[in-house]
C-alpha cells in the first residue's frame, strides 16, 4: 500500500508537518484558530524526531501485520478495508494503551485528553496527507514501495 516515507537527508526539522497535521485534525481547519483553541487537545499523528542535525518525520507505518491491531482490546484500532490504513476509532477506544505498548515505531500516543489513542490516519482518505503536501522540501513522500 501507499505509505508515507521520510527522506531524512532532506528533512529540515521545521515541524511544519506537525503543525499542518494539527490543523487538518482540528475542528475549524483554520490554522490560527486551531492553534488558539485546540492546540492542547490535538496530538499530531506525525512527530519529528531529531538527533543532531538529522531530523526525521515519523508516523504510523500502517503495518502489514500490525501489532496494535492484535493488541487492541476494544476493536477501536481497525484496518480500513478500502485503503488498508490502520485507524483508531476514538469513540470505541477506552484508553487501555495496549497499542502504545505494542507499536514498534512508537507511532501511537495518548491523545492530549488521555482518553483515546491518537495516531496518523493518513488524513482520512485525502488524496495526499497534509504533511506530505506541506513539506517545504518534499522530505516526506507518499508512495508505494
Amino acid at each position: 500500500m501507499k505509505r508515507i516515507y521520510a527522506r531524512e537527508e532532506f528533512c529540515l526539522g521545521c515541524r511544519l508537518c506537525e503543525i499542518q497535521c494539527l490543523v487538518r485534525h482540528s475542528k475549524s481547519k483554520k490554522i490560527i484558530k486551531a492553534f488558539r483553541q485546540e492546540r492542547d487537545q490535538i496530538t499530531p499523528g506525525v512527530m519529528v524526531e531529531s538527533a543532531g542535525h538529522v531530523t526525521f518525520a515519523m508516523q504510523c507505518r500502517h503495518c502489514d501485520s500490525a501489532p496494535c491491531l492484535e493488541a487492541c482490546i476494544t476493536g477501536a484500532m481497525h484496518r480500513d478495508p478500502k485503503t488498508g490504513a490502520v485507524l483508531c476509532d476514538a469513540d470505541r477506544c477506552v484508553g487501555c494503551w495496549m497499542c502504545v505498548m505494542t507499536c514498534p515505531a512508537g507511532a501511537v500516543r495518548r491523545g492530549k485528553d488521555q482518553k483515546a489513542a491518537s495516531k496518523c490516519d493518513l488524513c482520512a482518505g485525502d488524496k495526499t496527507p497534509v504533511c506530505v503536501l506541506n513539506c517545504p522540501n518534499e522530505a516526506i513522500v507518499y508512495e508505494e514501495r
Partner: protein
Amino acid sequence: MRRWLVQPEFKVERDPARCIQCQVCVRQCANDVHSYDEDDELVSSDGASCVGCHRCATLCPTGAIAIGRSQLDFKPNANWTPENIRNVYKQAEGGGVLLSSMGNDKPWRVYWDHLLLNAAQVTNPSIDPLREPMELVTYLGRKPDQVRVERGPDGKAKLATEIAPQLKLRTPIMFSAMSYGSISYNASRALAQAAAEAGTFANTGEGGLHTDFRPYASNMIVQVASGRFGVDPDYLNIAAAVEIKIGQGAKPGIGGHLPGEKVDAAISRTRMIPQGTDAISPAPHHDIYSIEDLLQLICAIKEATGHRKPVSVKIAAVHNVSAVASGAVRAGADIVAIDGLRGGTGAAPTTIRDNVGIPIELALAAVDSRLREEGIRNRASLVAAGSFRSAADVAKAIALGADAVYIGTAAAVAMGCHLCQRCYTGKCNWGIATQDPFLTKRLNPDVATRRLTNLLRGWSLEIKEMLGGMGVNAIESLRGNREHLRAVGLSDREMAILGVKPAGE
C-alpha cells in the same frame, strides 16, 4: 564581539494576531534571530543579526513575520550614504577587509535596461513559435575559416573540413562556475542534474568534480583555475569541455580563499587537498604571465584530452577585455567566457566587487566587434556571464554577439537564494552556499533540479516568443545581429561601443 556603532540592518516584525508560537522560525533561522521563551511560552525576535534572507517569513505558516529595513535613518546625505557610514563603523571596529557575496549591488548602469528588442510587422511577418519549429540549439567551439565540400566516389556531397570539437546546447543558457565547497553538495548535484536534463552544461568551478557527479560529466565543463584543485587527467577527460579560469567578474585580479573549516573529507577528496587546510586560489596562475604562457596551458590541456574537448578561457570584463579576449582566441581558446561587473561570487572584498571591472554589455560588444575586425570571430564562441536576470537579458546578449550565456545568480535564485549576500558566512539559510549539515539538507536536489529545469524551460519559451516576434526562426539569426536592438537613454559613445542605433533610428 559587540559592534557598538553598527546598528541592525533589518527589523523583524511579528504580528501577534497571527503568530501561533509554532517556532518554525526559531528552528529555521541560522542567525538565531528568533527565540522561544519556555516560561512565557512566547516566540520573540531580535532583528540585530537578521540578514534579510526571508527564510523565516517564507516558512511561517501564518505569514506572521515581516522583515523590513531598519527604521533607524541617518540624516539624509547623498554623499555619505548609510552604507558608507556603516562600513566605516565596521572597519573602525574590526580593521579588516569588508567581505560580501553575490554580485555588485551598486547602481551602475544596467545596459540591458536601456536596450530594446525589435519585432516584425507586415513586411517581415512574425512567426508563431507554438505552431512552427523554432531552433535554439547552439554549438560552442571553434568554427572553421571556410567549409569545403567534396563529392565522394558515390557522387554524394560530403564535408571535407575537419570540424573542431563542439558543445551542443539545447538552449543557449549554461550554469556558470560555482564550486563544490562554495556551494553545497546538494546545490552542486542539482546544477549537474538540471544541466543533464535540460541538455546544457554546468560548470564545476574550481572545486573539482565530486565522484558522485561523474554520471553527469558529459554535461559538465570542468574548470582549471589558479589553485588547480581537483585537476588530474581523469578530471579533464571525463568532462565535456575544460575551462581555464583567468578571472571572475565579481573580483577581477583577486584570488579565492575557502577557509579550512569548510574543507571537510568530501571537499578535501574532491579538491585533492588535505582536510582542514585553507584552499587558496592565487590571484594569477603562477605559470601564466603572457598570452604565450596561456597558449602553452591551452595546448597542454588539448594534448591531455586528445584534442577532443573544446577549451574555454574565462576572463573578467576589465578595461582591456577585448585585447585579452583576442589574445586568448589566438592562443587557441575555443570558447571565451567573459564575466562582467555584476557577476556573482561566494566571497569577495566588497570594495573590489563593487568597484572593479566593466559591465558585461559593453565588454561583450567590444570583444565581439574586436574579433570581427580581426577576422577571428569564428575561431571561438563567446559566452557572456554576469547577472542575466531574464530571458530578455539573454536575447539581448545574443543580439550583442554572445553565442550563449552563463547564469549563476539566476540559478541560485531559482534554487531559493534570496540574495542576502551572506554566502561568505557559511550560514546560508537556504542550504545553497553552506557546508553546515543543519543547513545543506534544506536543499532537496530533486526539488532544486526541477526548479532549475523549469527556469530554463520558461526562459527558452520566452526566447522563442521573442525570436518569433522578430520574424526569425532560429537563434542563429539573432546572434550578433545588433540591428535587432535599439538604445534608449544612452550616450552616442555608449551606443557606438554597443554598436546599436538609438530607438527611432
